[in-house]
């Protein structure tokens, strides 16, 4: 199908650089998420791919062909909007037929394709409904069907789940992901929700201030964040101060910290003696009754949320830790605990600032 290549793409509004020279290569059939806080340029990037926003500089290639000067209606994209943008004066059928009519496809074939796509999004029997007669989730699936029925080169989704309630949002994540796999269409998905980006994508592009902070598989982004900003954006993280004591093989440094001396994965080598910041994910930490282990502390807060328990621990050395455990942990607020962190729970973020 289609390979997308974005090269040094830039968008300026006056003197502001909304998108600042980003380059991404998207493989055929790949599901890519643009993840970042609002104002990071992810939506502007999507609009430039769609053709609704003109690129100030750079190229966007579909299968090697630059489309920067091709108007939106000739780019052959399927787009799903945050508010679905279903045509309110048309029935589901008419909404789905619109793109096919624009492509001058014969009536019988149109009906055929609509029936097939409605089946695919499990909305058979809803043909004659108007959008305002459908629930949010159903409208979402119609929007998806309308984008897919034209068999576009690329599927673009702009925060499509933002208006749904939590339970439906999780269902739709899986639904969209499975559908995308089955159709095998190259997909660009914009979101500010890191969990959404991670569960759905082959690769995640993390953006801050119009630039790409990191591109990688979800596990890469989560376990090996490029910097502090990325680490904090894609999940909760404890920052631990340490000092490099020596090398420990390729891509590993020995670091001394309140948890003792451990071999920590890192992207770059650091000279001995340098102060560094380690990240430690809350779910990598284990709590045990006080007495054993180097790091000792006290539970200052406990938040039970069903699938996990969140603890706040005040270490005797002064640091505060955020810990997540299974709900069967029998440790109460005020208890003294010893804190254990395995070596592979750490990641060396970089030199301390």
């Amino acid at each position, binding site marked *: 199908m289609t390979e997308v290549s974005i090269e040094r793409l830039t968008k300026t509004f006056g003197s502001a650089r909304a998108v600042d020279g980003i380059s991404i290569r998207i493989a055929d059939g790949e599901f890519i998420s643009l993840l970042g806080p609002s104002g990071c340029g992810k939506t502007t990037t999507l609009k430039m791919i769609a053709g609704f926003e003109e690129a100030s500089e750079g190229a966007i290639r579909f299968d090697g062909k630059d489309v920067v000067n091709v108007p*939106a209606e000739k780019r052959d994209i399927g*787009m799903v909007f945050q508010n679905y*943008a*279903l045509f309110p*004066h*048309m029935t589901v059928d008419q909404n789905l037929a619109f793109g096919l*009519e624009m492509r001058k496809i014969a009536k019988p074939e149109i009906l055929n394709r609509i029936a097939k796509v409605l089946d695919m999004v499990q909305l058979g029997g809803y043909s004659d409904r108007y959008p305002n007669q459908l629930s949010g989730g159903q409208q979402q699936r119609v929007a998806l069907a309308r984008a897919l029925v034209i068999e576009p080169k690329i599927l*673009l989704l702009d925060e499509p789940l933002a208006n749904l309630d939590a339970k439906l949002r999780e269902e739709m994540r899986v639904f969209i992901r499975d559908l995308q796999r089955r159709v095998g269409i190259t997909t660009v998905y914009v979101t500010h929700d890191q969990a959404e980006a991670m569960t759905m994508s082959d690769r995640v592009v993390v953006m801050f201030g119009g630039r790409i902070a990191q591109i990688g598989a979800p596990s890469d982004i989560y376990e090996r964040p490029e910097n502090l900003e990325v680490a904090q954006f894609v999940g909760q993280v404890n920052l631990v101060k340490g000092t490099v004591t020596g090398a420990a093989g390729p891509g590993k440094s020995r670091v001394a910290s309140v948890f003792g001396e451990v071999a920590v994965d890192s992207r770059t080598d650091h000279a001995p003696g340098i102060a560094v910041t380690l990240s430690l994910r809350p779910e990598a930490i284990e709590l045990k009754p006080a007495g054993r282990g180097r790091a000792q502390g006290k539970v200052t807060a406990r938040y039970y949320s069903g699938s996990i328990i969140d603890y706040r621990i005040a270490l005797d050395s002064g640091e505060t830790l955020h810990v997540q455990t299974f709900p069967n942990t029998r440790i109460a607020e005020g208890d003294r605990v010893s804190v254990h962190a395995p070596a592979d729970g750490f990641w060396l973020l970089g030199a301390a600032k």
Partner: protein
Amino acid sequence: MMPARRKGLGSMVLIAPAAVLLGVFLVLPYLNIVVMSFRMPGQGTPYGQGFTIGNYTKFFADSFYLLQVANTLWIGLLTTAICLAVGFPVAWQLARGAMRFRALAYGLVLSPLLVGIVIRSYGWTILLGNAGLINRSLTGMGLLDRPLPLMYNALGIVIALVHVFLPFMILPIMAAIQGVDPSLESAARSLGASRFTAFRRIVLPLCLPGIQAGCILVFVLSLSAYVTPSLIGGLRVKTMAVTVVDALIDTFQWPWGSALALMLSVTGALCVVIFARLTRMKWKAMEP
């Protein structure tokens, strides 16, 4: 939950002031006009004793009055069409244009309403008259030998009415366009529709109610306009509204004036109903 009956009562109380106002100051006077139109003409009095259908037979017997109704409708139609053609692009810019432009344009659109209608109409006589600004300039530049007939005809009335009633076309259309989500156009274009097709298939049908409201407002206002047609049309071109006032005030024939007024109302209402029907059908037809 409030019981349905009490909710109904609540809304009744809310519309009561408007209902009383309309009843006392619109429905009752209208009924009075209807009764008046069947009275005998008076001798030295506004109306005489007894009832007759003579006022109506007089109206239908004389093609002069029928022609005048047709002329009035024609002026209304032309004013409405020009207001729509001129007003739609302005409404579009007001609804979708750059913010900076909007405040200025909004002020310009509303400005005709800030000046009294008599003053505005007199202003047009200064511009349109044979010795007016436009004709003086054109003849002065040697472009014309004789002044263009811009006053004392339907053309002059239409020009002035367009100026006066343009805001009533622009404002409802602007509101309707603002109600159409811009992402619908983007969606249409992503599906392969050109800008024009996206406008025709998506935006236009969705703002048709605003267009309909604007057209009906301007049409009805044009039919009932009095000051502008009487000043610009003078004695030569008279619209129905002018003739009605002549009958009621100048010649003091209340029954005859009432009959004329009712004929104007009925034909105007008929036009509005036909228009509403046609546009609703058109709306339906736009859906594939």
